[in-house]
């Protein structure tokens, strides 16, 4: 993109790469950029509700500092670039609510590692994005702060749990946002909102300071306008962290360095189980077309089988609730967070603080998890689910002997209507059928826009890679985006 082209477009339309060029070229300052986005958030976010908190004052101070760094030539990778953090990443001095009444009053005295990484790279934090409470949900409707809505259709959900991050990027209220993915919470909202979402390999990005939902599945990643920006963001987010025992000390390549490599000889597998019952016909058609397009880019396509796919949802809904039932025990009204009024004794304090502080879906999952772990049921549920998890991992290991990537729809449907699935948790859980197996196996995957339905709803293509193949995923996504313009289509009425 030439500087002239940058000047013709509004700041909010530019990618991180373009913003970086503009900042270094002194086309605009970080303060101007930051003010631009603050103005947009103030004006537009009453419609989208994508932010739970904003921190304009700190943002302008950070932008001012970034401008000095840019002038001094000390600029980091994200120097002066406005971003937003999902509201489950702890931010020192800025409320971190996790979308819950339980943490409505919680201001952490420390930064999550990824928040620190972004700050060290010079990023300017505009605020904290909306989410399903404690990252539990696929529609953002489980937020204590009300649902974020989809910029592509304001009666539609943005997906979840990182709905706020996806909606904010889609509405061009921020160029990029952090997000987290336990069963699809980066990729499904990215798909619903027509943006790019990357879930890295489990262990690639530190979990320190990310409020835990299901520790063995949670992984942070970026939501961006395109794959190139996702590569830039991953360069910042990924780090080995001694404070997270599950962080993996794997060499970190420059993810932007290999974006343009040709895809000749790339072998893509299509799991037959992913195009079965329950998939929306338009979603199937658009994703199949996108996959076919890869052939024109030099890839070969073959059908593969992931035979235990149908077991992923039930296994996930044992393992994730089991882990969450323990992870959320710390929210007990004793040390921080919500405490009920006038507790009569300890038991009353516990019961009412948790009953009043948690929302319905969180309570449902805590109950399911506690049940699955209880004496007499552990073997039938938890142990069995772990066995299924190993089988699912083996399915992928087998397939990755023959192919380099797996391609599929990100979600079986485009964005659905607000309130459409809230009465039926199981149909909501099935939203994550193509994304959950990836978390159970710990693999990396990316969702990129691959077209719009007749009702003008975005559809996402999911690419799944082998462990630590983020560079290949980003390269494959970038080459697709170089040859198509799906990712450049923007939601209506956002100016």
């Amino acid at each position, binding site marked *: 993109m030439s500087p002239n082209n940058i000047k013709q477009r509004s700041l909010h339309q530019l990618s991180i790469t373009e913003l970086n060029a503009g900042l270094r070229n002194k086309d605009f300052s970080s303060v101007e950029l930051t003010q631009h986005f603050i103005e947009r958030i103030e004006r537009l976010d009453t419609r989208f509700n994508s932010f739970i908190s904003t921190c304009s004052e700190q943002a302008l101070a950070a932008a001012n500092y970034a401008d000095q760094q840019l002038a001094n030539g000390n600029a980091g990778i994200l120097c002066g670039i406005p971003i937003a953090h999902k509201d*489950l*990443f*702890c931010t020192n001095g800025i409320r*971190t609510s*996790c979308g819950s009444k339980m*943490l409505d009053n*919680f201001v*952490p*005295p*420390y930064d*999550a590692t990824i928040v620190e990484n972004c700050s060290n790279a010079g990023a300017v934090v505009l605020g904290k994005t909306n989410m399903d409470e404690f990252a539990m949900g696929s529609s953002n409707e489980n937020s204590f702060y009300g649902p974020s809505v989809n910029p592509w259709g304001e009666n539609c959900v943005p997906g979840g749990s990182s709905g706020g991050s996806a909606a904010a990027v889609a509405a061009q209220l921020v160029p990029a946002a952090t997000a987290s993915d336990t069963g699809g919470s980066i990729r499904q909202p990215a798909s619903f909102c027509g943006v790019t979402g990357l879930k890295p390999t489990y262990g690639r990005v530190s*979990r*320190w*300071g*990310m*409020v*835990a939902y*299901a*520790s*063995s599945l949670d992984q942070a990643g970026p939501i961006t306008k395109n794959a190139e920006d996702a590569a830039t963001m991953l360069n910042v987010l990924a780090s080995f962290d*001694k*404070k*997270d*025992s*599950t962080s993996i000390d794997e060499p970190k390549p420059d993810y932007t360095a290999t974006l343009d490599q040709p895809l000749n000889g790339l072998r893509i597998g299509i799991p037959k189980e992913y195009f079965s019952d329950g998939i929306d016909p338009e979603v199937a058609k658009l994703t199949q077309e996108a996959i076919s397009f890869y052939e024109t880019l030099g890839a070969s396509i073959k059908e593969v089988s992931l035979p235990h796919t149908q077991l992923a949802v039930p296994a996930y809904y044992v393992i994730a609730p*089991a*882990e969450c*039932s*323990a992870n959320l*025990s*710390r*929210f*007990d009204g*004793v*040390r*921080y967070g919500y405490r009920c009024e006038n507790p009569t004794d*300890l038991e009353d304090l*516990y019961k009412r603080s948790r009953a009043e502080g948690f929302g319905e879906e969180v309570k449902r999952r805590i109950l399911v998890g*506690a049940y699955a*772990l*209880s*004496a007499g049921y*552990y073997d039938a549920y*938890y142990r069995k689910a772990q066995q299924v998890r190993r089988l699912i991992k083996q399915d992928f290991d087998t397939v990755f002997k023959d192919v380099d990537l797996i391609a599929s729809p990100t979600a079986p449907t485009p964005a659905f209507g607000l309130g459409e699935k809230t009465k039926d948790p199981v149909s909501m859980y099935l939203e994550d059928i193509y994304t959950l197996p990836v978390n159970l196996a710990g693999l990396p995957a990316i969702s990129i826009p691959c077209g719009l339905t007749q009702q003008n709803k975005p559809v996402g293509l999911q690419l799944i890679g082998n462990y630590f193949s983020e560079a290949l995923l980003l390269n494959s996504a970038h080459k697709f985006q170089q040859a198509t313009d799906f990712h450049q289509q923007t939601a209506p009425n956002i100016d």
Partner: protein
Amino acid sequence: MEWETVIGLEVHVQLATATKIFSGASTAFGAEPNTQACAIDLAMPGTLPVANEQAFRYAIMFGLAIDADIGKRSYFERKNYFYPDLPKGYQTTQLDQPIVGAGHIDIELDDGSTKRIRIHHAHLEEDAGKSLHEDFQGMSGIDLNRAGTPLIEIVSEPDMTNSDEAVAFAKKLHSIVTSLGICDGEMSQGSMRFDVNISVRPKGQVELGTRTETKNLNSFKFMEEAIALEVERQIDEIEDGREIIQQTRLYDADTKTARSMRSKEDANDYRYFPCPDLLPVIFDDAYIMQIKDNLPELPEARCARFISQYALSDYDAKQLAENAAIANYFEACTEQCGDAKLSANWVMGELAASLNTHELSIQNSPVSAGQLASVISRIKDKTISNKIAKQVFDALWNKEGEDADSIIEAKGLKQVSDTGALGTMIDEVIAANQKQVENYRNADADKRPKMLGFFVGQIMKLSKGQANPQLVNQLLQEKLNG
């Protein structure tokens, strides 16, 4: 009917690591409440545990010392229950694959025989904080300084049949962990805490009776009392036709009574599952061998060495070797003064008595091993008598000087061996006690030594204890006999 008691112990041993098992906060005892609890110990949202390698090392040392299988693959689980002093709402502990497997400890019984007590396993876990139930106007205070302190929980088989055996086992365990240096052994600070499982059955019956667990005993004496009380209670219950109810009991050492804390029906379902924040830890043989090769000397080996190296009596050697801190003190003192026998006498005599009176452990002794060695050296070179040495020791205890020499100098306690000075004193005593002199001189030779004691005493009194007793004896005899 004759009854038989069956006892098994679960022992919580605080490991002497500098920092906590999953955080970098200090484990030092006695700080202001909540000043040694970091974000991880407080279970702040988003914080994560990182295992302390030293805790594993210490647990492996214990395992090697009791000849146990070391769990080469070991992982942590979450034990879920709500309590205010348990910040995460679960305790991180081990269940399925503990670090230390089956082992054994041999105890010595009063009749001199030894008995083998089997250890079922020992596992690593984190300690909880403390609830403080006073001074908070109807509320409880929480101190999380202790939260996250590493523990090993040692679980014995029910191999003990009376409180003597249980106490001998507990003491042996104390001796092992302190000798290894993995625990400071400070019972009053909660460094070792005992849960006692007790059941009774008619003598000869194979089947075990219903057991109760008396929790959190932190002294050998309390343990002995609590066992006696519970055994008596159980026998009374059965003899009165009632059944023993499985329950957890608390012993109150002040009132010497115990009460039921909860019965089996109220017991928590702890919903254990592997902790996803901590990966399994795998040890290779080289790691374990390296620890084995560097294992400190254990009490039994040390006792044997004391007998051969220092020619101590069996009794003295055992007394000294049992407690590593005492054994270290004794050896340091011996090395500096060169007299093992005198060192042993002083460590077990004057020093032990003084420590006991002031309720101090040897680690906190006001008199260091080097200082005691300086006292013993002056006894050996006859600068001071044994009696004066006790004065010098007391002065050192009260921090009146740096070492024996400075105190002897400052207080003028040097033994008088000047024959001229002693002669003057003897003349004085003889002149003042003419009648006794006459009696002495008229007495038979075999009665004289005893009578001499009177004169020696007078001279010691006159010299304020500083006269060289041997010289006094010699000079007196010369003058009186002459």
